[in-house]
C-alpha cells in the first residue's frame, strides 16, 4: 500500500491587499528574503515535525520558479532539511504540473521499490506583469508530503494524465513575468478540455463517478474557471469542490493543487475519497483514499488553515514591487565591493545551510558555528555536529538597524539563546518592531541572505542562511 504518510504546507506570513491592484481579497506573498527554495524548506519542516529524517531516501522538488537553469534547488532543500547525503534529489520544472509530476514520481518510486520514503515538495513564487490579471490571481506558497509504504494515511488509488501542446500560459528563459494568450483561448483550448479529459479518463479507468468523491480538488487559474470545470463534470460546487483559495491565498502555481490537498486533508475523515487534478500543458488526475490513520496527523502545526489565518497584510504596492525586485533599490548607501567565494561558501554550508553547530563530547557544551576547539573546555577535536533546526530560542539582546541598505528596514540583529543550549548571533526576519523585546521566543527560518546577495549575484550566485523569526501564531 503506497501513499501519503505525512503532509505539511507553508503559506508566507505576508498578504498583499488586492484592493491596491484592482482586485478583491488578498494574496499570499513571499517575503523579500523568501523564494521557492526557502518556502519548500519551511513546508518540509512542517511535514517532518517530530519525524525521523534519517529514513528519507529521496527528495523530489516541483516548481516553475527555480532560481537556476543549471544547479539543483533540490540539493539546497535537502541540505537545509538536514537529510542524509545519499538521498536521491531531483527537480521537476517547466510546467504548472511540476508539483503533481514530483508527486507521481514519488509514488512510482515507492511502488517500484527504488525508495522507501520520498519527500515530495512543490513551491512557486510566480510574478505576473504589474497591473495584469495574472498579478491579481497569483499567490506564493509551498507544500510537502512524505510518500511511503508504511503508516500510510492516504493511498493513491490511481492516476490518469493527458498532454496538450498549447502556448496558453508560458515564460521563456529570459522572461521575468509569466505570459498568457487571451483568456478564452487558454480556457477553451487548454485548461477546460485537458482537465475534463484527465478527470473523465481517471473515472472511466477506475470506475468512479462524481458522486463517489468526497472532495474534488482542481487547480484553477482564477476564481471562475475551476467552478465552470467542476460544474461541467457533474460535481456539486457547494459540497464537493475544494475552495481554490484564489482571493485568500492566490493561485500558487505548481504548488497549488497539492496545497489544496493539504487543506482538504486537514478536514478529511477516514474513507473519504479525494479527486486531485492539476493543469499545465495537459493535466494529471489522481484518486486519493483517506484511511483511519488520518486523525494521528492532526494538530502538529498550524496547518493550512492556521497559516492562512496567521498573516500580516500590506497595502504598500511599491513595497511589493521592491520585494520582487521589480523596482530597484536606492544604492547610494550600498556596501562596497567585496568578493564572493564559492570555495569559502561551500566550506561553511554546514553552518549556513544545514544550521549545524557542534557539541563537545568532552563537556557537552553546544556551540555555534561549529568549532574545533571547545569554547567552554578547550578540548580539541572532540566535536560532533549539532542541529538547531526546529529548536526554539529566546532573544537575549537585539538592535534594529534603519540605515544599512536592504529591501526592508529595520534590520534586526539578535543574540538568541536556545533550548538545549547554544547561542547564535544573527539576523531576524519578520520583525514586529512594536513587539520585539528581550526574552521574545523565536525559531529559525531558512532565508535568502539578501544583504550580500548583490555581490554574489555578480557571479550569478544566490546566498542562503538561517534567520530568527517570531513564532507564528
Amino acid at each position, binding site marked *: 500500500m503506497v501513499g501519503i504518510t505525512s503532509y505539511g504546507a507553508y503559506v508566507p506570513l505576508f498578504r498583499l491587499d488586492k484592493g491596491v491592484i484592482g482586485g478583491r481579497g488578498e494574496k499570499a506573498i513571499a517575503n523579500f528574503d523568501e523564494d521557492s527554495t526557502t518556502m519548500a524548506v519551511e513546508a518540509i519542516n512542517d511535514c517532518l515535525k517530530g519525524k525521523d529524517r534519517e529514513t528519507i531516501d529521496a527528495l523530489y522538488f516541483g516548481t516553475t520558479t527555480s532560481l537556476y537553469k543549471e544547479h539543483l534547488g533540490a540539493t539546497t532543500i535537502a541540505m537545509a532539511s538536514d537529510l542524509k547525503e545519499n538521498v536521491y534529489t531531483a527537480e521537476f520544472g517547466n510546467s504548472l504540473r511540476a508539483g503533481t509530476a514530483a508527486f507521481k514520481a514519488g509514488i512510482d518510486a515507492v511502488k517500484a521499490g527504488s525508495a522507501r520514503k520520498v519527500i515530495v515538495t512543490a513551491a512557486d513564487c510566480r510574478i505576473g506583469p504589474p497591473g495584469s490579471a495574472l498579478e491579481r490571481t497569483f499567490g506564493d506558497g509551498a507544500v510537502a508530503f512524505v510518500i511511503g509504504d508504511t503508516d500510510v494515511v492516504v493511498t493513491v488509488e490511481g492516476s490518469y494524465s493527458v498532454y496538450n501542446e498549447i502556448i496558453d500560459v508560458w515564460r521563456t528563459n529570459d522572461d521575468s513575468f509569466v505570459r498568457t494568450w487571451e483568456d478564452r483561448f487558454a480556457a477553451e483550448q487548454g485548461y477546460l478540455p485537458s482537465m475534463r479529459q484527465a478527470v473523465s479518463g481517471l473515472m472511466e479507468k477506475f470506475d468512479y463517478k462524481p458522486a463517489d468523491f468526497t472532495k474534488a480538488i482542481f487547480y484553477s487559474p482564477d476564481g471562475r474557471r475551476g467552478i465552470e470545470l467542476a460544474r461541467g463534470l457533474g460535481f456539486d460546487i457547494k459540497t464537493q469542490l475544494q475552495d481554490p483559495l484564489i482571493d485568500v491565498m492566490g493561485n500558487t502555481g505548481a504548488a497549488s493543487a497539492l496545497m489544496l490537498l493539504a487543506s482538504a486533508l486537514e478536514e478529511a475523515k477516514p474513507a473519504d475519497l479525494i479527486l486531485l487534478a492539476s493543469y499545465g500543458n495537459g493535466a494529471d488526475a489522481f484518486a486519493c483514499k483517506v484511511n483511519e490513520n488520518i486523525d494521528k496527523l492532526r494538530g502538529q502545526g498550524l496547518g493550512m488553515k492556521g497559516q492562512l489565518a496567521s498573516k500580516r497584510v500590506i497595502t504598500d504596492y511599491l513595497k511589493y514591487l521592491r520585494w520582487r525586485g521589480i523596482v530597484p533599490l536606492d544604492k547610494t548607501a550600498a556596501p*562596497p565591493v*567585496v568578493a564572493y567565494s564559492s570555495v569559502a561558501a561551500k566550506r561553511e554550508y554546514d553552518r549556513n545551510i544545514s544550521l549545524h553547530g557542534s557539541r563537545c563530547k568532552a563537556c557537552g557544551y553546544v556551540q555555534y558555528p561549529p568549532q574545533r576547539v571547545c569554547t567552554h573546555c578547550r578540548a580539541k577535536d572532540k566535536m560532533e555536529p549539532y542541529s538547531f533546526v526546529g529548536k526554539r530560542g529566546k532573544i537575549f*539582546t537585539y538592535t*534594529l538597524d534603519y540605515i*544599512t541598505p536592504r529591501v526592508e528596514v529595520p534590520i534586526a540583529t539578535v543574540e538568541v539563546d536556545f533550548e538545549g543550549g547554544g*547561542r547564535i548571533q544573527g539576523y531576524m526576519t519578520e520583525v514586529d518592531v512594536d513587539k520585539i523585546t528581550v526574552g521574545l521566543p523565536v525559531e529559525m527560518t531558512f532565508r535568502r541572505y539578501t544583504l*550580500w546577495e548583490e555581490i554574489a549575484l555578480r557571479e550569478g550566485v544566490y546566498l542562503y542562511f538561517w534567520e530568527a523569526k517570531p513564532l507564528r501564531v
Partner: protein
Amino acid sequence: MGSMKDKVAIVGMGCTKFGELWDKSIEDLVVDSCYEAIEDAGIEPKDIQSAWYGSRESGLTGAHLARALKTDYIPITRVENFCCGGQDVLRNTCYGVASGAYEIALACGVEKTKDHRGFFGLFIQEPLDRGLTEWDIPPASQFGQYATRYFHRYRDYYKWDFEGFKRVLAIINVKNHDNGLLTPKAHLHRKITIDDVLKARIISWPFTLYDACGMSDGGAAAIVTTPEIAKTLRKDYVLVKAQALAVGSGQSTMQSEFDFVHIPENVAAAKAAYKDAGITNPRQEISIAELHDCFSSTELITIEDLEFSPRGKAPEDIKAGRFLLKGEQPINTDGGLKCFGHPLSASGLRMAYEIYKQLQGKVDNPERQVENPKLGLIHNVGGNVGIHVSAVTIFGLPE
C-alpha cells in the same frame, strides 16, 4: 610577565585635523602628522631607525609611509587591528624600542575612510576567516546589542524607562560635543542639547544619529625613544606606564553565560594595564582618559569595565558630571571619537596625542586644559561582539 612601565618615552607627537578631507591624500596625512611629531621631538627624519604604520584600508605594507617620508631603507611594518590599529602601532613601536633593537622609532596611523563613503566603519569587508555567507553585522548593531541589554538589566534598579537611559547617553553625547567645540583639530564642531539627541532620528535602535561617532579622514604620529635619550631631547617627555591588548575568542556570541552588560575584552586589557602600572584604584589614580566612544553606550560600558565607576553605577556618575571637562575624572577632553572623528588606525594615536599634550600642559586651546593631570589613559575597542580587540595604554610624566 614583564612590564612596560617606564621603559620607553614619547618625545614628539603630531596629529592632523580630522574630518572629511576630500583634498588630502594618504601622503598628505603621513607628511603632516609625522613632520609635526618630528619637529615636536626636535629630531631629524634621518634619526628614525624603524617605523610602524597603521592602516585598515589606507595602504598595505609600510610603502605609503616610506614613500611619503623618503626614508632610507629602514624597516617598516604595517599594523592592522581594527579600531585598536592606532594604539597597536604605538604598542609595537614601543616594543621595538624597549627591546633595545632601536633607539628612535616612529609610529604613524592614517586612514582615508571617506575615500570609501565611510563604509569600512560600517561593514567588515573581509571575511574574518569566515566565508562571505556567514553573518556579518554592522558595528552599530554590534555595539547596540550591549545598550539594549544594559537598559534591560538595570531597568528595575533605576526605575527608568527607555528614555531615562537615553538621557544618560545624551549627557555623554552633549559632553563630547562641548569638548569638541573647544578642539580646533576635531571633525565636528557643533553645540547640541539633550533634546537634540532624544529627538534625532533612530539609525540603529537604540541609537539615534548622535549616539554614533563621526567617520573621518586623519592621521597621527608619535616619536618613541628610550627614557635616557628622551632626557636629552626635552624635559616634559611622556613615559609609557602600561600597555595591554586583549582579543576575544568568540565567547560572548557562543556562550549564553555572557551578559552583554560588559565587554570582557575591555576588562582583560584594563586589568593587565593596571597591573603593569601598579594602579589599584583607577577611579582615583587615573586623572584623565580617552575612551573609545564609537557609540555613546560604548563609553558608558567602558567606564564600568575600566573601574572608573562600579558596575551599574556609571549612569549615576555621568549624571553627577564626574566625567565632564571640569569634573573629577574628565573623559574625552578633545571630543572623543564622537567629535574628533574616527579614522580607525589613527584614532589610538590621536588619543595619545591628546593625553600627551594634556600631561605637558600644552593643549592647543587653554580652555580645554585639565589642571595638573598625573596619569592619562587611552582605550580602544574594535571588531565584533565576541571577538573584540581591546587596548589600553597609560601615560605619565617623569617623576
